[in-house]
């Protein structure tokens, strides 16, 4: 039995450009920062994130809402004495998304370094 021979187009033989795999939720400066801090700290308090990322409370809350909706972080509210405290934990999906983003960024850098860029004339 004979059939059509699959001959991939030249552009299909190459691996896709790393940019195509970037996740818009994670590929954002502040959200990448939140995930990085939460990964390193395991569990981080809202105030620490706000100070380190130099954000307003409202701005940080919006970014956290995006990450929480995507299932990348868990937000837990509690009390330390009389003070309300909000703790942020990275989920397994968040951990994987962060690892994926870092790998894509490294691929992008490697591709930029190995690509022959013609000089502007």
């Amino acid at each position: 039995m004979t059939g059509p021979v699959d001959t991939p187009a030249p552009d299909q033989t190459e691996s896709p450009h790393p940019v195509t795999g970037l996740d818009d939720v994670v590929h954002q400066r502040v959200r990448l920062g939140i995930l990085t801090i939460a990964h390193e700290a395991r569990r981080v308090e809202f105030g620490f994130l706000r100070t380190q990322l130099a954000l307003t409370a409202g701005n940080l809350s919006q970014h956290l809402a995006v990450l929480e909706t995507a299932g990348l972080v868990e937000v837990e509210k509690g009390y330390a004495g009389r003070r309300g405290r909000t703790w942020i934990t990275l989920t397994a999906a968040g951990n994987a998304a962060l690892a994926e983003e870092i790998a894509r960024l490294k691929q992008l850098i490697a591709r930029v370094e190995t690509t022959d860029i013609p000089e502007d004339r």
Partner: protein
Amino acid sequence: MTSDAVPAGGDPRRLLTEARDLAHRVRLAQRVTWLPLLVLGLVTLGAIPAYRYGHTVVSNCKPMGDGGQACQVWFQTATFYWWTALVLGYVVSAVGYLRVARARGLETRIAPYAIAGIAMLALFTTLHVFVARELLPPPDLERPLPWVVLALFRLTDFSGSVGLALLVLAWLERHPALLLFALGYLVVVIVPMNFGWGNHWGDKWGFAPMLVISGGVLLLGSAGFALAQRLRRPR
């Protein structure tokens, strides 16, 4: 929308650099290096009275050529002291680390340090008892043990296990300065140098010079790391 106030994406190199910088800042904020060093330094100095005034078990004596005798000595009180004090010390350090880190708004990976410290304590004690009972020949002061055996013995002794636990902490914290400090401390423990200090203090104080030196090194390290942390803190 507020979440778009910061430009999305950006130069990948810059994003990676920022991520690494943030991770480094978190590690700095999690560190309370002076605390375990202080605790271990105090535990080491506290061993001096346990050796001096504690109960010892003497066995396996063998007459020497000069009319004296060489014996195996088990420092019973000192062994129990080290065990209790080190286990308590690791627990206190871990709890202190967690409290300080939480007050700063973070969690910390300190539990493996305490677990490794206690596990090494158990493993090395078992090893020493086994070697002393089953492998070591009766004491012979005229033919001292090879230096490799002595170095291994000191490395797995209580003071040595403290240094190995500090290596674990340095790895957990990705802390090069603590790594160097722990290696330096281990050299002090393995190559005992007392500069002749304590030579005439008598048998009962035989352990004191080494304990003062190793405990002093730990306390000085604690003061140094506390000072460095204080200077680094933003004003």
